Every structure is written in C-alpha cells, then in structure tokens.
C-alpha cells in the first residue's frame, strides 16, 4: 500500500515536470519553404485593412489575419510565449513600437528572419538609410519599416500670422518663442514633452546618447553630453512656464487643450496631424475649427549643428518569423505591405519605403485640412532622422525613467534630473545585457 503510494507520487511528480518543462523544447528553425503551407499574420487595427486587401488579391494563399493588441510590449510577450510553447508563432507580425525588434531578435526569443538575400537589395535600398540601419543587428537586416515617425514642427499658421509670430528655425528661437508666448498669451502651448514625445522627439533629434547602440551588446549613454544639456536648456524654462506640457499627447487633459485650439505648435511625428490634431478637433464639439490652420514646418536646428536633424516617434515595422514554413510567401507579404503601390495609398501613416511615400504624399498635397502643403517638409525630414537613435531592449524602462526624472521634477532642477536619467538609463541598459560606455 505504502509502496503504491510512493510510486503514484513519483509518477505524478514526473508527469508534472514533463508538463512544466516539455514546452520549452521544440521551436527549431526550418529553412525549406513549403509553398502550400498557410500563413498566420498578426497586425494592429490600423494595419488590418491593408493586410485584408492583400488576402483578397491572393486567393491562392491561405492567410489568416489576426488583429492583436498594439500596446507596447504586447506582441513581444505573446511571441515569446508562443516560441516557448513551440506553436502559435505568427509567420509575419506588424509591431507598432519598433524598439521591440531588439528584444525579439535577442535571447531567449530569437524570432526574426534575417532578410538579407531573401529580400532583393533593390527593395532594401528603397528605404531611408536610418530605417534600415535601425533594423540591422550584427550586420543583418531583421525588419522592414512600415511607416516613419520622423518629427517636424507642426504649427497653427493662422494663429502665428494673427499674433505676428515667425516660425522658429533654431531651438534658441523656439525657446524665445515659448517665453514670449507665455508672457503674451498664457494658457497656450508649444506641444508636449512627456515620455517619447520628449525623449524621442527632442532628445532624439538632438542626438543625445541614451539609445545609441553600437552593437547588440554595447551602447553609448552620456546625459552630460552637450547634445543632452542643450535640450535641457530649452525644455527647462518652457516646462516651467507651461508652454511645454508634461502630459501625454493622448491624456484627456491634453487632448482637451488640442480641441480648444490651445496648442499652437508641436515638435511632433509625421502622424501627429492625422492622429492627434484632426480627430480631436473634429469630434470635440467645440467652436475651434482646425481645418485650414495647421501645417508642417522644418525641424528647428539645435545649437551647434550644421543641419536640422529630426527625431523619430514610433514608426511601425514588419517582421518575418525565421520559423515560417512558407517562408517565400511570408517574405512576399511583408515586402508587399511596405512597397506595394496600391497599399501605399491606403496607408494611414507616412510610408517608410521611399517610392510608397511619394505616392502617399500626393494625397496630402491636395488635402484642404492643411494650411499649406506639408509633403516637402515631411519628405525632407524623413532623410534626416538623427543616426544616434537606435532600437534598444530597454526602451520602455528608458521612457519610464525619463518621466520619473525629467518630467516628474517639473524641470525645477534640470541638470540633476538629466544626471539621474543618465544613471537610470545606464542601469537599465546593463540589466538588459549591454556594456555601457560614454
């Protein structure tokens, strides 16, 4: 009897261990392509129409399009679990927070397929250099840019004309404008600097080394660099006088300000007009009419720079799984999503692929919502995203510590906030497996 019980216990325990550990094996890579194998594609809601259009155009392929949660980190954690389980791994995925590629391409996930050789060099050459270089790890390209979040200076042209303000071309002028605006028209502002809207748009365009990854395991971080302190010099007085908000762009307290016309300018991504200004002024029910008022101006130039670098806020990417059974079709799908001229027209954001961007911009040229044609400014900014920006595995922690230091302090002591940010960034980078140098 006792013996039986012992045998039973051992059997149960070993069964449990098998259940628990059995899942971690499997998930080997396949190199052969099976043209009949079905495809599973994960997209966010904004990308679903273009994926569905492709499915309709290719009835010979069995493609399942799953619309998944687009929140930062969501895709990575789901793919990590699928890889661990050895099944349910998507063949192609759209990721809205492009920094996730750095986590997806590292241990323990190792999800993406290297695209060199499977995607023609001609296609790769059609993307702006910076989007390709950000997707490159250990000399291999692991993602294709869907859209770009290059920053420009969005501004209310009508309001600027009415108040006699000129568009700043340097950040010193931008700072002077903020001081003037606070004195003459309190309550109005020049955008927001919370999270990525400050870290990526301002510090990113300045080339402040916080996400300057040189290899997959080394990164340069130095917030004492003049490229960081000059940003602090502009931000501090403007946060203090309220002309730069510290609320998130989509915080309802801030969207209320957009809806009432209080935001007269913003250093913002290419998608800012379509996703922040347009919807919030159309559905607000307030008397403020944004149509015909806003347009894009070139990024102002940072003090000491010879050109006006742009930052990048967002910009989605497509990634192909290295375990895709029908590799050929999976790669073709990702290439079509980024380069197909018909799909380019249906894109909701500025396409990363050059020829697609040209097609997409045509619709902006004649869009009466803009005070003037923004297309030339957007195109120029696309080529000028600061190369010091990269995709790193600690992006989420970096933005969280940016908010905990620079934003939380309310810019009362910018130099110590910058220092604290640098310390936390270095710790986050080390924790993510990077060696940090200055």
């Amino acid at each position, binding site marked *: 009897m006792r013996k039986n019980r012992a045998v039973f216990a051992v059997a149960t325990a070993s069964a449990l261990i098998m259940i*628990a550990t059995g899942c971690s094996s499997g998930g080997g890579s396949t190199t052969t392509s099976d043209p009949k194998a079905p495809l599973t594609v994960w997209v966010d809601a904004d990308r679903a129409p273009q994926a569905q259009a492709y499915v309709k155009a290719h009835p010979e392929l069995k493609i399942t399009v799953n619309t998944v949660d687009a929140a930062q980190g969501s895709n990575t*954690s789901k793919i*990590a679990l699928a890889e661990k389980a050895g099944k349910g791994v998507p063949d192609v995925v759209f990721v809205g927070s492009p920094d996730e590629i750095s986590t997806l391409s590292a*241990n323990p996930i190792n999800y993406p397929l290297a695209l060199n050789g499977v995607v023609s060099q001609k296609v790769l050459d059609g993307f702006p250099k910076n989007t390709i270089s950000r997707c490159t790890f250990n000399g291999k390209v692991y993602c294709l840019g869907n859209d770009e979040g290059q920053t420009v200076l969005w501004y209310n042209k009508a309001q600027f004309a009415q108040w006699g303000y000129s568009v700043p071309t340097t950040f010193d002028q931008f700072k002077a404008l903020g001081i003037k605006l606070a004195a003459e028209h309190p309550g109005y502002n020049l955008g927001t600097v*919370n999270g990525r809207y400050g870290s990526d748009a301002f510090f990113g365009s300045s080339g402040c080394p916080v996400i300057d990854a040189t290899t997959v395991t080394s990164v340069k971080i130095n917030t004492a660099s003049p490229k960081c302190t000059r940003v602090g010099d502009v931000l501090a007085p403007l946060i203090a006088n309220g002309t730069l908000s*510290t*609320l998130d762009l989509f*915080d309802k307290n801030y969207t209320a300000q957009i809806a009432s016309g209080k935001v007269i300018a913003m250093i913002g991504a290419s998608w800012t007009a379509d996703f922040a200004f347009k919807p919030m002024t159309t559905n607000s029910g307030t008397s403020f009419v944004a149509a015909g008022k806003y347009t894009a101006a070139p990024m102002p130039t940072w003090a000491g720079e010879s050109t006006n670098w742009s930052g990048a806020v967002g910009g989605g990417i497509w990634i192909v799984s290295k375990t895709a059974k029908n590799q050929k079709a999976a790669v073709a799908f990702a290439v079509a999503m980024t380069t197909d001229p018909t799909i380019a027209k249906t894109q909701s954001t500025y396409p990363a692929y050059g020829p697609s961007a040209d097609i997409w911009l045509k619709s902006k040229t004649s869009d009466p919502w803009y005070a003037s044609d923004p297309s030339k400014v957007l195109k120029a900014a696309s080529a000028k995203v600061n190369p010091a920006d990269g995709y790193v595995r600690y992006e989420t922690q970096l933005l969280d510590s940016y908010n905990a230091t620079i934003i939380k302090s309310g810019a009362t002591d910018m130099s110590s906030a910058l220092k604290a940010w640098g310390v936390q960034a270095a710790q986050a980078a080390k*924790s*993510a497996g990077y060696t940090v140098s200055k």
Partner: protein
Amino acid sequence: MTITNSRVRRLRRRTPAWGFIAPYLVLLVLFGVAPAIYGLYQAFIVTSVVGDPSFSLVQNFIDVLSDYRLPGSALNVAVYLVIWLPILLLVVFTLALAMDAKRTRFATLTRFVTYVPGAVTGAAAALLWLFMFSPNVSPIGGFLRLFTTHNGSFLSDNTFALVLSVMGVAAGAGGWIVVVYGALTGISSDVVESAKLDGANAWQTVWHIKLPLIRSYIAFILIVSTAQGFQVFVEPTVIAAGAPGQVSRTWSINQLVYSYATEQSNYGRASALAILLLVVCVALAVFIITKTKFYSTGDR
C-alpha cells in the same frame, strides 16, 4: 479478520473525503503547485543576450535585488501598506463592533451597504475608481483639483499610495465586516453578560472580552491583507493607464515582476523576484501567526 474489517472501515470513511477534495486537488496541482515548481526551476536559469542560458543559484536574485527600480517599488508598496492596513482594520472593526453592539435593522442595512463596493472587484473596481480620481469627471473633481501636480494631473507617484488605499478600503472592508460580525455573534452571550455584571462598560467589554476572543480573525485578516497588499498589481496597472506617463509602470513590486516577464522576456528574473516576494509574505505570516498564537487551541 478484524484487521481487514478495520481497514475496510477506514477506507470507507476516507473515500468520501477524497471525493470532495479531488476536484480542488486537481486544479491546485495543475495551476498552483506545478507552475510554482516550474517557477522555482526558472529562477535559477539565467538568460543572456549572447549564448545559451546557464544555471546559477544566485545570479537572477542578485540581478533583481540590484535593480534600480526595486527600492522605489518596495517603498511604494510599503507606504501603501502603512496607510491602507491600519485604516482597513480600523474601519472593519469599528463598524463590525458597532453593529454588534446595537443589533438594529439599521445595522443590517449598514452591513449590506458596506459590502456592496466589495462586489465590484479587480479591474472593474479600478476602472470605477479611475473615474473617481479624474478631476474632470469625478463628483469630487473640485476637491481633487486642490491637489493636482504642476501639469494639472491628480494621479502621480506621490498621490498614488493614497488613491490605492482609499480604493482598497472601500472595496475590501465590506467582506471583512461580514466575517468579523459573524465572529462577534459567535461569542457566547453568557460571557458578555457576566462581564457586564462585573461592571465592565462597553469599551472594556470590547477591549478585554470581544477582541481577545476573535483574535484569530484579526490574525487571519492581517495575513491575507498583508499578502494581498504586497502583491498589489491590477489596481496600479489599470489606474495608471488613466494618467499615461504620470505613474511609473513598475510602481509596485509585482508590476516589476510583470515587467521582467513581458517587457524583457526574462522569466528567470521574474521568477526570482516572485520567489523573494513569497518569502517575505510567508515570513510575515509566520510572524503574525506566532505573535497572535493563531493555531493555539488551548487557553483563549
């Protein structure tokens, strides 16, 4: 012959018991014990960016204990516990004792009313309180505006512990009031009556008679609530979403565990921190049990 009989009898006595336990046991093993064992195993597996995972008894623990976010998260949770637990206990015992002292219809109604907020739990409660603490839509918006930060947001790292405490008391007190009230009604009326005859006033009856008699309930509430407080996760996650960029994504220790597992895909560190959290909670539980003589059946 007699041996066989007693064996059969024992077997017969035990079978229904196992029958009752079995369904729970299956679930416990599948979703409790097995994942816990797997978690323990994972805590010793170190994931490196380059190369294969390796085995180390201490590396993941060192990594999580030296994480720059841990002191902040631990402090947040500590402040939350210090605010929330005493208020919870005070509210629960004051109301339960008052209801017990005056067993009127009003008391029954109060017991019901205090229980209602507890019916809305987890994410739904967090969402409800998110509205309560958003100055623009809250019925007490004008009051909240007195405490907003420089950018007009009420929710911030500074106010968060207080917000969660208010929410925790409102949602959790009702259930405990019912439990404590039940315990109080279980006290023999002879004991209370003889205390009165001896000249004890209401306060003395509570302090020297009633509270010592329900001591194990106090211990139970403390153990469960401390563990619950240490593991606070859903509320800060949902409420922080209402103020994007204003509250840390790793405000609580459990959110830090979640960050390791999802944002960083580092299951080893996630498991290590979860185990450390478990150790702290068990240690506190043992401390409370010994201090309150929770399991002693003798002199009460």
